[in-house]
């Protein structure tokens, strides 16, 4: 066996361990300051993700009141965990719009039926174009958008139960 091949496992292990050490040293921080904060939502117009629910466009986000824009997908496991939290936010009067990423209408309908539907409107972003335009790289991810359609806050990863006050405070600030 060649020398390079014999040392390959050790080298790979080194890389993997380095990534793990990095993660332990930098515990996951789900609060990320977006570069887009303070900028207007890029113009977009998405078709409705499921039948019977209105479509979503950037113009519809500037309603005079702050809103929460949530990126999700039916194939995303953490989104299932986030669903009850969104439900609670909705019950507290938060207006939430959703964008389904790389999804099929029947799967979205399934997902919403199973996990609850907190959204007023759901757009379908089949090729992640809007997601990328908003500087989001994964699901779930949420944006606080103020009444004039300006992004005020970006939340990467699922909103946890104990982060509800944080989101409510951001929404309050956006008023």
């Amino acid at each position, binding site marked *: *066996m060649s020398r390079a091949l014999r040392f390959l496992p050790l080298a790979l292990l080194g890389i993997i361990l380095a990534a793990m050490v990095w993660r332990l040293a930098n515990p996951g921080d789900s609060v990320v300051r977006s570069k887009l904060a303070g900028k207007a939502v890029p113009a977009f117009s998405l078709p409705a993700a499921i039948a019977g629910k209105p479509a979503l466009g950037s113009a519809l986000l500037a309603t005079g009141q702050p809103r929460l824009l949530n990126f999700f997908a039916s194939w995303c*496991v*953490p989104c299932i965990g986030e669903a009850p939290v969104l439900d609670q936010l909705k019950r507290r009067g938060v207006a939430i719009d959703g964008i389904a990423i790389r999804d099929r209408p029947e799967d979205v309908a399934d997902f919403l*039926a199973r996990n609850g539907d907190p959204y007023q409107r759901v757009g379908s972003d089949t090729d992640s174009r809007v997601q990328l335009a908003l500087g989001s790289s994964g699901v779930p991810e949420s944006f606080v958008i103020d009444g004039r359609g300006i992004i005020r806050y970006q939340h990467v990863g699922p909103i946890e139960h104990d982060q509800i006050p944080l989101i409510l405070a951001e929404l309050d600030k956006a008023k």
Partner: protein
Amino acid sequence: MIAEAGLEALWLAAALALAQLLFAVVAVRSQPEWSDAVRAVAVLQGLLTLFAFLMLIAVFARTDLSVALVAENSHSAKPLIYKLAGAWGNHEGSMLLWVTVLAMSGATLAAFSRRVVERTLIAALGAQGALALGFHAFLLFASNPFARLSPAPAEGRGLNPLLQDPGLAFHPPTLYVGYVGLSVAFSLAVGALLAGDVDQRLARAMRPWALGAWIFLTLGITAGSYWAYYELGWGGWWFWDPVENASLMPWLAATALLHSVGVLAARGALKAWTMMLAMIAFAMSMVGTFLVRSGILTSVHAFAVDPQRGTFILILLTLYTGLAFALFAWRTASLKEGAPFELVSRESGLVINNLLLCVILGIVFFGTLYPLFAEAATGEKLSVGPPYFDSVAGPIALLLAALVGIGPLLSWRRQSAPFARKLAVPSLAAATVLVTTIILAPDMRLLPRFGLAVATALAIASLLPLTGRNFLRVPLATWGMAVAHFGVAVSLAGMASDSAFTRERLVAAKPGDTLQVGPWSIQLHGLAPTAGPNWTAIEAELRASRGRGVEVLKPQTRYFTDPPTETNEAAILTRLNGQLYTVIGKPTGDGSWQVRLWWKPFVTFIWLGGALIALGGVLALAGRAFKGWRPFRRQERYA
């Protein structure tokens, strides 16, 4: 007193683990007469750890609330079985179970292994001592299960009915035995590389350990999958969640090891590869434990996560895997590969099996850790979902399943007789299934369609090694192989059938409405509130019928108050040809309720196949243990 005795035993066992390591170094380096001391210490260490574990069981059985762990995880009103299961249903207790299995494995190896070269065995026991020492230290310094609580509370806090489930009581220990059983294969590989004796005897000593651990992993994963299926109420049976992947990865590595160790045992080939696999398999077990305990990946499974403990496990993982891989790099240069083999032979069949398994392992590993790598490298945060795993690993797994049917028909070293003739029947059957599904179900997706075809071919091909022979004289190991491979076909058929033929209805129904799903007509008879110790629930009564007879199903939606959560308790009706899976959802406001119904034809085959695979392992293990069961044949024809 009981708790103190357990703690003392643990300290003593830790000291003995250190002695085991040091004595082994002395014995291997210069003075072989120390070997007996190593064996004795290994056995004693195992017994002391077992004693400590029994003491933990005792404090849980008595509900001694002055022990912090009991106060946090138990309650005097729990049924005894869940009191006992509570002993390992938490971090500290489960780590003690881990160490107990580790130490008892070492003791068993010391007491009963006669197959392997003495020097290799002693070196392996030294390695096992080093492993035990690290995990003892972890237990004593970072997760002491016997810590006292003063003053003792009047009652314990652990009466979570969600966790009082027979599945949860036995699923984790089964997986643990599998995880830790692989440590012996790891230690034997390390011992053999240190002693420079990688040979067929080593492989024969390693095989039962790999096989035994693999059986437990298979059972654990199968049971876990079924638990998720009936408990989570999503109708799915595998979610590619990091915690599920953490148990799948050691299984994939162990499956590969099981097959390559057979090549090494029979032909003396694949030496370096087998040693690497033995190391990777246990490394994957440690990675799995680390992922679960450190919480570095987002999972739907909630564990008590503690970065401190994560750091400790990561240090152990780095130390053991790093040293083992360095040893591999340093020692394998001198390994001489055994008998050569030709392109079409049993050996190359097993090499392909190993490569495919490792590719799947790589895909799962990469997919599981990709969010971590991506964030470390670019700062991006993302998650990898089932579409990746299904579409990337699925086709390869299917290819592997197809080859599983062919491999056992090849002969060692060189296939001289043409074997294509043997494949005629399975191929024909697969083609028939393909054509039939194209005609009858043209809309079926590609993966389930080929899944059904491959499952059919494999089911027939897996039994071919038994044909044309006197059944009673077929070695038990060959029976084991046939049964396990047949199990793969059964499980695959279940997966394909579930994904292709499942009928699903989601409707808002009023009491009295009748709904159709598949062959069933189901009446929503009524709804009633009901309550448990810390939950209230809405229970629906469904009356299902397909022709004659009426079955009653009672799915629930439960509302827990602390923490406020909502769970769906599915009601499942099992029939020979499938399962009716029912879930009751939320009220829609106009007097109707969301009702979700699935008819899943042959879905039970998934777990039945898993059980058959494990049974095959048991037969193979029994066949190796009782050689007398095949008196007329000495040569191992099918491994």
